[in-house]
């Protein structure tokens, strides 16, 4: 199996898995603690609509997905802020409508069915160097926001109202985090597919939350767990000729179930 690493596509897949893990660890932690799971789901399905629209319009599917998801993500972020009580149902409608739009556009565009399929299940073995650069750039942006503003982000994540009374720009941080999550979701869809992106954003962080005493250790543990899930999933997929994305998620789910049995150190329940 090691000899497979001499192939470019396998090296790219490995880099993609590592970059994807770093993004999932950092932004997945925000998704879990801020309860943005439904938003991430909405973005992922809206992205599918964007891919369909881009294929129909004859532009790059990746650009279509990013643009479409970003526009809807900003709208959803606004809904969460202004109409918190209705946010769940409004995002639910966007979720379904985005998916449906993707399918209808695919119907209207003959010959592109397989491209849309790759967005459903991911194609980690077909990752290009451009994908890797984009993910690395996003990671750099996320860290350049997160490191200087770490105190403000912790306060914003823990208690928005209190953070506001301390002068933390809560609304701005809300939009920045939502935008970062949305772009990450679109990139991660390339790796594990639309169906599995939510799991990769939430499972490592949900496991990590139980064993962490700060947001930053939670992010660190999530990154490491995510890398373990991705690489072992990838190895199993290659060894047994399985779909990589699905294998990664099954490994992650198995660890999640195990973590339910292992109590957190020194924490009263």
């Amino acid at each position, binding site marked *: 199996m090691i000899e497979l690493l001499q192939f470019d596509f396998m090296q790219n897949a490995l880099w993609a898995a590592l970059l994807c893990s770093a993004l999932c660890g950092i932004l997945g932690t925000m998704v879990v*603690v801020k309860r943005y799971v439904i938003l991430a789901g909405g973005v992922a399905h809206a992205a599918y609509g964007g891919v369909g629209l881009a294929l129909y319009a004859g532009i790059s599917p990746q650009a279509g997905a990013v643009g479409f998801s970003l526009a809807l993500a900003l709208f959803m972020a606004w809904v969460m802020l202004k109409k918190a009580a209705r946010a769940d149902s409004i995002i639910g409608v966007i979720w379904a409508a985005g998916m449906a739009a993707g399918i209808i556009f695919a119907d209207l565009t003959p010959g592109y069915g397989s491209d849309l399929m790759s967005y459903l299940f991911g194609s980690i073995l077909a990752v290009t160097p451009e994908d890797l650069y984009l993910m690395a750039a996003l990671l750099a942006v996320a860290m350049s926001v997160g*490191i*200087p*503003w*770490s*105190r*403000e982000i*912790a*306060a914003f*994540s*823990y*208690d928005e*109202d*209190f*953070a*506001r*009374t*301390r*002068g*933390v720009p809560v609304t701005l941080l809300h939009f920045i985090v939502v935008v970062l999550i949305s772009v990450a979701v679109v990139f991660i869809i390339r790796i594990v597919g639309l169906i599995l992106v939510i799991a990769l954003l939430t499972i490592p962080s949900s496991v990590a*939350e*139980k064993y*962490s*005493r*700060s*947001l930053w*250790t*939670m992010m660190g543990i999530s990154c490491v767990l995510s890398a373990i899930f991705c690489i072992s999933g990838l190895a199993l997929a290659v060894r047994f000729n399985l779909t990589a994305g699905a294998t990664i998620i099954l490994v992650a789910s198995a660890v999640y179930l195990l973590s339910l049995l292992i109590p957190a150190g*020194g*924490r*009263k329940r």
Partner: protein
Amino acid sequence: MTGKDQALSFEDMSFSYGGEMVLQGVTFSVPPGEFLVILGPNGGGKTTLLKLALGLLSPLSGKVSIFGERPGTDRGVAGYVPQDAGRNRNFPITVLEVVLQGRLGLPGRRGIRYSGEDRSGAMEALRSLKMDGMAGRSMGELSQGQRQRVLIARGLASDPRVLFLDEPLASIDPDTRDMLLALLGELRGKMTVVLVSHDMSAVSGHATAIACVNRKVFYHDSAEIRPGVMEQVWGKCPVELIAHGVPHRVLAVHEEGKCDHD
């Protein structure tokens, strides 16, 4: 009655949530050093009044000021102890990190980490609540009463001139309650305290002013609040209050015909 000499002042202030009037024509001023208890029924606008004073909400019309300035202008002036809903119970954070959040926004801070001064300020606030021995513990390990004490320490960490507390005595054990009441007594005189409560008996020993809130606000200042006349003042509140041992007693109406009930 405005100006820098008033700790908190509302001038003909109104506020609505999506077209529904929540507070109307609110006018009152609290001089420095008062211990104001805000009473009123659920949904009457108590928490809304507090959020307006903190600048978390903006009035529809009229004016709110703290020491003559718009709320939120000077981050050193107000401390906030929100109601503990327990929503973020599993959030990975230590006691000290929570209290340090109270040091954010203070003038003259640089760098990306909390300074030594921030840390000693936070520890001092924890000490005043006898929680300094738990600084390194996870918030998730604490009891409800301990969590409440940490939230009060966070509100005190900026050494505020006005401390706002939202139902700090709700759902905590009797021992913690007695301890908190003693602490609030100590705060009286050191700073202006504004406390929202639905339970008048608990805070009766400390209050120097009372605001009864049910869409309108009826303010009773320290001249009215003397031992013995306390019950009369409460008797005048046009709102349904919960008296100790006498749950859900409806008290007399403030001024006939002037009070709106939905």
